[in-house]
């Protein structure tokens, strides 16, 4: 199995290489990077390109490692026993399979995405070490060993909110998605808007990268914001000329609210533009 990029996802050479290393050596690939750089999308696209099913496990601050294996629904069983439900005699009825179990028991290899692993408790990654290493775990309630029929291809994303334990890191390949340069970004936009006119693309990209350069922004616009903004520009049929200007720093680009989602940032940006304008006048 080899990933060679896809029509819907722009993968740089180094990313493609890291993905293939992870696939061939059957180790998890840990992906970090600014928000909106396509970390989550990567797993989706690799699964699609390889033609294998995707299992997504989205992590929250309350997620426990055990939930990825299985949960024993003791409360239901207690209730059923009160109601005299015959199901109560078979404990299997109360074992709820988690994502890892599902991935292990699949009949063909799958891609397993563990999204935003840094949201969980610091212990979370450590609690999954053995399971990810050996690809097996033990179910105490039913006394059975669950072993992966096929080792899943594991993608793990992180937004860097917490540091991850060394023991965990040693077992992964690591890739950091850099914010795309202009060339790469044009390709990404091309994937989403194949029909987009070259001139509009050029102007919009210039505006976008200039806005990103504005000092002091709380949240710089990312790929998702650029894509949203382009969608709006197209929907509103904004002419290319509206983006073009001899001195672009003195106009506020149309629909800039789509690029800057934070109100403070919008104010800051508008103030800067006015100041430049005043100076120029």
């Amino acid at each position, binding site marked *: 199995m080899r990933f060679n990029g896809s029509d819907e996802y722009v993968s740089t050479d180094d990313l493609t290489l890291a993905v293939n290393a992870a696939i061939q050596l059957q180790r998890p690939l840990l992906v970090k990077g600014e928000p909106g750089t396509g970390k989550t999308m990567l797993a989706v696209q690799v699964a699609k390109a390889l033609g294998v099913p995707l299992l997504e496990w989205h992590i929250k601050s309350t997620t426990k490692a055990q939930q990825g294996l299985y949960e024993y629904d*003791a409360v239901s069983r207690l209730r059923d026993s009160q109601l005299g439900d015959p199901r109560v005699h078979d404990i299997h009825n109360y074992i709820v399979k988690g994502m890892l179990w599902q991935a292990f028991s699949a009949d063909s290899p799958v891609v397993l995405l563990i999204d935003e692993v840094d949201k969980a408790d610091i212990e979370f990654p450590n609690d999954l070490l053995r399971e990810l290493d050996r690809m097996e775990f033990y179910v105490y309630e039913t006394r059975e060993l669950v072993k992966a029929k096929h080792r899943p291809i594991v993608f793990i994303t992180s937004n860097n909110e917490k540091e991850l334990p060394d023991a965990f890191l040693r077992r992964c390949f690591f890739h950091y998605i850099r914010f795309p340069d202009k060339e790469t970004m044009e390709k990404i936009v091309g994937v989403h808007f194949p029909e987009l006119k070259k001139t509009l693309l050029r102007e919009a990209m210039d505006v976008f990268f200039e806005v990103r350069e504005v000092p002091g922004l709380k949240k710089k616009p990312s790929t998702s914001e650029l894509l949203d903004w382009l969608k709006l520009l197209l929907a509103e049929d904004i002419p290319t000329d509206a983006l073009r200007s001899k001195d672009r720093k003195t106009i506020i680009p149309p629909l800039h609210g789509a690029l800057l989602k934070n109100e403070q940032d919008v104010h800051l940006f508008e103030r800067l533009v006015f100041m430049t304008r005043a100076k120029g006048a």
Partner: protein
Amino acid sequence: MLIDFFLKLKSHKLPVSIKEYLTLLEAMGKGVIGPSVDDFYYLSRAALVKDEANFDKFDRAFAEFWQGVETIPGIEAQIPLEWLLKQVELTLTEEEKKQIEALGGWEKLMETLKQRLEEQKGRHQGGSKWIGTGGTSPFGAYGYNPEGIRIGQDRSRNRSAVKVWDQREYRNLDDSVELGTRNIKVALRRLRRFAREGAPDEFDLENTISSTARKAYLDIHMRPERRNTVKVLMLMDIGGTMDDHIKLAEELFSAAKTEFKHLEFYYFHNCLYDFVWKDNRRRHSERTRTWDLLHKYGHDYKVVFVGDATMSPYEILQPGGSIEYFNEEPGAVWIKRFMDVYPKCIWLNPEPEEIWGYRQSIQVLKELMNGRMYPTTLSGLERAMKVLAK
């Protein structure tokens, strides 16, 4: 050969483990990459480096290693990496070779080249600028570049002339660079983590119920309380050349304000003496006696000094050393008092750590602080927080 690479990384203080090294070997054995140095660079990075803050260090180590490899005479014979290096082809025509001779020969060209690379590093420039393309530089003019030893990398051939690792693209992710707008968010997160640590436990109702149901006996669970108990007293040197850096530290802590139970700011000038003040503009009219701080803020406060500690040692060690007014007691006495009252007391210094050794006053203050002085870099902050949290 590859073990040298591994050791080179270690000598650059990269936290690489044998396990990861074996992974790299395994990957090479399984043919994950083709015979291309770029591929080797990417693969080894993905296998060995797990934090983008270390990418820049890795780039530097890789450059050193690769330079070493390149200059070994009879390279192919010595290196098990042959398959990689066999691909090294010199794509020069006879005519070009003659032109090189005219320029003083191959050796000379290599020398100049190396020099350029050094210069480029020294000036902290992006990688691609210096190679003349319009025929101004001998390297550009003859279709030859420092990588003119072209390496079998089909895809990259027209992509970049400069080695990826020489571009040092990850420099600003290095956590030993000073705090700035780029990394302040990360700093903040680390500070928040510090604020949360050591919070006492609270009753975990949900977990207790489910665990009790499961075990059929009362099984009480506790979890760390989310609220914060950390109290911080910050004392900052203001009115000097370091104002910007000190402001940054102040902003950083202010941004984390909600995470602390209490956070208090006071200013001093150069060193701590009898008085501090809250509002820098009214420093002469509205002063607070330093004694009052010691009485007002309990010893459970964590004290953070921020300052460049750069002054004449006289200002620390002598009564009357202050440049603002006549202080009865030397600054050193005040610092010692704080150290005695507050077990958790550190100094953040925005000056780069490498120069500390050259300034006597920094040495003196660091000693007074029992060595607890840290640079205002991400890793410095990290070390400082560890000490405060202990």
